[in-house]
């Protein structure tokens, strides 16, 4: 799939890809600050682990499944077509290098899988998680990315949602946000709640990290959204402005909900509101005007700010609110296109409130529903199979001690100098159990 491109476009997409990569450590800090101090390193490592495993899986087979020629029905690409990127290394003047487009898309998968980790914090076996990352990329992420992102051209047949259905999803409200949220819910249900969920306090151990992580995510999100224009032009600029606006109104709306409901506007709410607004503008950033972006960000900030309380009512432990922020925010963003899309925006479509009729809203609803159902169903199967085969959750005692120490033999903070006595190096002997 050759996109015409000049050197400016190529330079921008190289930079945008690196910005998307920065979202991984941003997400790691965002999540790491939210967990208790006994599992912060594990949380960070789950996201870094996803970065490594998903990137490799993508180059081997994931990209082919998502962007290879359609095997039929717009459901899946040809898995052997771009194996190891071996057919994508030739220099073709005047187009976006295939390898650049492919790895930009792969980093979207990294962020998507990393998001799921937040639903199963504090209690997941690390090795099983890495296996899950590879399996989920192949069975869930790549097909849904094919549906949503793989555009048909003269010599190429793409996915059903983007082409036959005609749903708009500029940067991943379906494939990234709804997908990760529904998968997070499935994993949280299979693993079950943390010990003491709903009874013991599980407050975030470091909100400074959460704020820093949210800031890095926002910075990286400009690569995610404005990079999805695949050109350095007006459409990328409008998307950039929209991405800023939605983050801003998302933050203020969440804070307003908190101020009215709880009496205080919190820093955690501010960070969460930014992310909720960014989630909702991800699919819609190319379809709306800056005013539309403000409305979408505000809707997402307010609705997600209310939705994060659902888990206590229904008793599922989506630990860091992947459902409340990414699934709900993703649905808000995907559906909002049907209402607020404007032909003045880069994608040039009018939604219901701009005189475009209800058809776009129907298409958006189908895309959101299909992604949600497929992701939730298939992820449940993957998680159940992995749990039966190799165990997905740590044993109770290890969960109480804390996964940092048990899984990684580390603790994040050495606040009591006397406890760190007698450091020495001793290579572990083969067959020796670690104490």
């Amino acid at each position: 799939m050759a996109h015409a491109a000049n050197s400016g476009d190529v330079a921008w997409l190289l930079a945008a890809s690196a910005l998307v990569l920065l979202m991984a450590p941003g997400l790691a800090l965002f999540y790491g600050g939210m967990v208790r101090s006994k599992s912060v390193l594990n949380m960070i490592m789950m996201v870094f682990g996803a970065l490594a495993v998903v990137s490799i899986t993508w180059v081997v087979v994931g990209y082919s499944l998502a962007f290879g020629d359609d095997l039929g029905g717009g459901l899946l690409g040809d898995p052997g077509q771009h194996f190891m990127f071996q057919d994508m290394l030739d220099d073709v003047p005047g187009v976006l290098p295939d390898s650049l487009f492919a790895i930009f898309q792969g980093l979207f998968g990294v962020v998507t899988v990393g998001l799921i980790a937040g639903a199963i914090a504090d209690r997941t076996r690390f090795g099983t998680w890495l296996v899950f990352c590879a399996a989920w990329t192949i069975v869930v992420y790549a097909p849904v990315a094919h549906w949503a992102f793989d555009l048909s051209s003269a010599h190429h047949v793409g996915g059903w949602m983007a082409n036959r259905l005609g749903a708009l999803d500029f940067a991943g409200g379906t494939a990234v946000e709804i997908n990760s949220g529904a998968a997070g819910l499935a994993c949280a249900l299979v693993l079950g709640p943390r010990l003491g969920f709903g009874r013991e306090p599980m407050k975030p151990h470091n909100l400074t990290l959460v704020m820093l992580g949210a800031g890095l995510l926002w910075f990286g999100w400009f690569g995610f959204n404005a990079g999805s224009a695949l050109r350095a032009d007006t459409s990328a600029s409008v998307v950039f402005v929209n991405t800023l606006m939605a983050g801003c109104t998302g933050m203020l709306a969440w804070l307003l909900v908190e101020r009215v409901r709880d009496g205080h506007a919190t820093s955690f709410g501010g960070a969460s509101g930014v992310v909720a607004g960014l989630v909702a503008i991800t699919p819609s950033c190319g379809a709306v005007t800056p005013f539309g972006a403000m409305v979408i960000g505000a809707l997402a900030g307010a609705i997600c700010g209310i939705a994060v309380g659902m888990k206590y009512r229904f008793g599922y432990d989506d630990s860091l609110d992947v459902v409340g922020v990414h699934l709900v925010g993703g649905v808000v963003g995907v559906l909002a296109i049907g209402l607020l899309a404007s032909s003045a925006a880069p994608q040039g479509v009018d939604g219901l409130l701009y005189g475009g009729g209800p058809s776009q809203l129907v298409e958006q609803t189908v895309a959101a529903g299909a992604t949600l159902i497929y992701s939730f169903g298939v992820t449940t199967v993957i998680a159940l199979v992995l749990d039966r085969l190799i165990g997905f959750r740590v044993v109770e005692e290890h969960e109480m001690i804390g996964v940092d120490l048990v899984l990684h033999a580390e603790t994040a903070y050495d606040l009591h100098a006397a406890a760190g006595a007698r450091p020495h190096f001793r290579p572990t002997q083969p067959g020796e159990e670690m104490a």
Partner: protein
Amino acid sequence: MKLVTAVIKPHKWEEVRVALEGAGVTGMTVSEVSGYGRQKGHTEVYRGAEYDISLVPKVRVEIVVDDADADEVVEAVVNAARTGRIGDGKVWVAPVDSVVRVRTGDRDESAV
């Protein structure tokens, strides 16, 4: 000899230290502790979930003094630490059997 132990509000610590120096106290041991008395804890809210935090941060000051100085030291701490609001803390005095200065081996009154 007496051990004077004071548990006070953290932001009052500097005033208490100055008052103790004024009373001639030359050394003390200070630790950051947590606890609660009649004021109980406080409430924190994270993403709408309320947490009752029962333990409140406090500073504990420990001073070993001659019997004759104990009342003056207690007075100094109480006056410096008082805000008049609930949660100001407590000061108590306990007898000490023996003291050794590690560097010299001096014992009891000469070690205080």
